[in-house]
């Protein structure tokens, strides 16, 4: 049975990371997680750093996305991300180091730290680790 599919592209300033017909996409929007099936109503939302999960032909793939937007229109999903990585491109050691750094910074509660930035860094690192484990 041919499933209905939608065109998904993940684009970063550096390159086009993903472009294929997929069944389902889930992402972490600013207002919470959301899933997109074909023929979703047109939508634009911001994305938090997190994991984008894709189902294609019954198989799941994940990408770590470092913030951006998601647009749905005419069964086409476009994710404009600041950065996006597939599981095999993630440097686990680096992500772990980044996670630790961010946690330390949050724990130190020093006045001079940028709380927002540290939090965002932590979320990015967690997303990367999550994706790396899903491989």
């Amino acid at each position, binding site marked *: 049975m041919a499933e209905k599919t939608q065109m998904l*592209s993940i*684009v*970063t*300033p*550096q*390159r*086009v990371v993903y472009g294929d017909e997929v069944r389902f996409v889930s992402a972490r*929007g*600013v*207002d919470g997680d*959301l899933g997109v099936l074909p023929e979703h*109503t*047109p*939508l*634009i*939302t*911001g994305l938090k750093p997190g994991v984008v999960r894709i189902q294609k032909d019954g198989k799941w793939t994940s990408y770590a996305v470092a913030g951006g*937007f998601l*647009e749905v*229109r*005419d069964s086409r999903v*476009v994710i*404009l991300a*600041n950065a996006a990585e597939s599981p095999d491109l993630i440097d686990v050691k680096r992500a772990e180091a980044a996670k630790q750094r961010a946690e330390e910074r949050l724990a130190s509660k020093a006045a001079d730290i940028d709380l927002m930035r540290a939090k965002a860094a932590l979320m990015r690192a967690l997303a990367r680790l999550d994706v790396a484990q899903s491989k």
Partner: protein
Amino acid sequence: MPSVRDLRRKIKSVKSTQKICKAMKAVATAKMAKSQEQVLAARPYARQLHEVLGRVAGGARNVKNPLLAVRDPKKVCYVVITADRGLCGGFNSNILRLTTKETAKWPEVALVPVGRKARNFFRFRAWKTDNEYIGLGENVKPEQANEITNFVIKKYVDEEYDAVYLIYSKFKSVMVQIPTVVKLLPVEPPQAEEGAEEAKAEAKSKAAYLFEPSAEDVLEFLLPKYVQNSVFQGLIESKASEHSARMMAMDNATKSAGELIDRVTLQMNRLRQENITKELLDIVGGAAALE
């Protein structure tokens, strides 16, 4: 009148210059290939962002955002992107000539040079600059563009600048680079070019967009991103243009050095032959006198 030795020395010096030019050309070619790739890879993102912004702005016409506020342009800021180094033909001077022309339009201008050549140009003319970004290096990163963007956005929101323009060299092809001016702020949402067609398509699908959390919030997020990306695009286009311009300039220099060598070699050979003839005549004359 140069002697044979003078000419030989000259040939030698031109030859070594030619070698340097050749090497620079090879380096520029390699770098150009890389930066060209980067530009081409970045264009889909820029295009998508442009389209999304156009659609969001179309769906949220009455939204107020400080980056959309149009003011009477009293003080206008120009971000001027040039190379850090010279030896790339008319690349830098084309940009700076355009800058001179553009800035003459306004009573009060603020300058933000990006690249050493622009900075030095303004400094030499004693034009005041508000900030400068030097030595961005070979691989331009989005963070560097963000730094520049955040600076001008802050000044714009503080109403210190009433408009911000970006001047850079657009990479059309290896042969053609076009000095370009784009308006960064206030952001003018792209709609004129796709307005008619889009509006029709929109009406057909009756697709009013769902904004999460709201159109205002999405715009607040999208607009700085858009400006950042414009700056980033400018930076990498400029880089690719610089390398192509340098490659062309060095190619020309290598060629003219070759021509010069040929010409001087010919001159030297003529002179040498003339000298031999003269010496022969002397000897023959001397021998004749002895008899």
